[in-house]
């Protein structure tokens, strides 16, 4: 490494600028057709359009709001139910024996595989979409919580027992907080998976949501809208992850120390 090595943030910034320059260079020279890759200015004006006029009867923020509502509903219900189930699985062997085959089966299953079934069972409105996101969040959260319980330092449990803690008190004051770092890591993972499943959920017939907007605009070859939508989804996803990371560091301040 040379002495004049750049700081990390400068390398990051340079990389971003390089990609932007490439983008401008390739598109402005007419090298690539608009349809395949719209230039930054096209995307910008597409975004302006969306902000001013919305998309097919709804404002851009309505679409974003609908998507976030679905993500939030699916994530919260799935992560909460998964965590509760996982805590029980970790603490009570029979519950683990009962639930783990289903959880282990569900976890690697691509959500698109059961998309059709959800439509048949639940119809095409919100409930099938949110159920899909719920099912995406549930197994990851359950397994994180179960492993968190199993990894609790046994001496801590014994220390609490020797101080007179009942099984419930051991669970409440030692097992649950001991598993919390892994539960929160699992929640972040689940949020990522739910977010990734959003587009699939919004394939289910409808006329709202940022994922639906991207799919619909793609069908009409509006690449500028597609790109604008991708940018929005990417930035919002990054923001959500950072928020959860910040929350995690604040709540489990002791983790890794």
């Amino acid at each position, binding site marked *: 490494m040379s002495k004049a090595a750049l700081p990390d943030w400068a390398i990051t910034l340079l990389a971003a600028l390089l990609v932007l320059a490439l983008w401008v260079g390739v598109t402005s020279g007419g090298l690539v057709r608009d349809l395949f890759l719209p230039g930054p200015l096209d995307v910008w004006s597409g975004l302006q359009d969306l902000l001013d006029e919305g998309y097919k009867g709804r404002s851009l923020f309505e679409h974003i709001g609908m998507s976030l509502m679905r993500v939030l509903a699916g994530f919260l219900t799935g992560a909460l139910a998964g965590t509760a189930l996982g805590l029980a699985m970790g603490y009570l062997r029979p519950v683990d024996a009962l639930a783990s085959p289903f959880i282990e089966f569900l976890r690697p299953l691509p959500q698109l595989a059961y998309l059709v079934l959800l439509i048949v069972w639940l119809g095409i409105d919100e409930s099938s979409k949110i159920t899909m996101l719920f099912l995406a969040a549930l197994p990851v959260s359950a397994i994180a919580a179960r492993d968190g319980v199993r990894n609790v330092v046994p*001496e801590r449990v*014994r*220390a609490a*027992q020797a*101080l*007179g803690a009942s099984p419930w008190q051991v669970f409440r004051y030692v097992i649950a907080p001991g598993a919390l770092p892994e539960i929160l890591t699992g929640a972040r993972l689940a949020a990522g998976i739910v977010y990734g499943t959003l587009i699939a959920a919004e394939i289910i017939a409808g006329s709202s949501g940022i994922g639906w907007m991207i799919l619909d605009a793609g069908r009409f070859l509006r690449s500028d809208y597609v790109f604008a939508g991708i940018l929005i989804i990417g930035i919002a996803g990054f923001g959500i992850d950072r928020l959860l990371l910040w929350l995690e560091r604040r709540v489990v301040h002791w983790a890794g120390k």
Partner: protein
Amino acid sequence: MSAASVRPTARDFVRFDGVSVRYGTGTSAVQALERADLSFAAGDFICIVGPSGCGKTTLMQTLAGFLKPTSGEVSLEGKVVEGPGPERGVVFQQPALFPWMTVAANAGFGPRLRGSRDVDARAETWLRTVGLWEFRDRYPYELSGGMQQRLAIARALCGEPKILLMDEPFGALDALTRERMQEELHAVWRRTGMTVVFITHSVEEAVYLGTEVVVMSPRPGRIVDRIAVRFAREMAEDGIRAVKSDPEFIATRERVLSLIWQMGET
């Protein structure tokens, strides 16, 4: 006193009656402890020494209630031990503190579980005793190794146990910290008259801290000798340095060491 007739004698404050522990079954079974008989009085400071695998931790765990003997029984004040309980405080080699609680919350954990009203006062007393009062609002990971172990001891004592069980509590500390902790523990023992069972790898530590040294041998784990020691009672006047250079101290230490040395050769 009529009560004395139904009570066990002072010598039977703690009793191990033919306690055996076997891990596993069939050919892979390990006899961790074989028919251990041991009893001692309230106020004793019992040090248990022996090579690795001699069952000293197993012996303590049956008294703590973490482990059920395969046969035989352990009792405290005539009551058979059925499981862990607050009358038996435990300190491990690793402090096993609760990192999500402050130092004060760790110290007061035992009384708080029972809904005691004087949790804060008791935590304060013991935190002051071990010199951690000014760190009460910190978290355990902000303390040094020695301070963490002092907190673990304060937490155990704050539960007001009748007996304190310590499994190599100073094993992970550096030599200087270790010596200071030994003196502090000893001061607490002299002041409170607490009964202590103390497992250690260090024969020297056992001989000057204990009122009695119990020597154990491995495969199968059994008690081979018990040696009464007088230094623990005298240390208050003479100080640790004087004790360590006392010829009788050296003779006792050599006796225990040679006992353990013989085991290594078999």
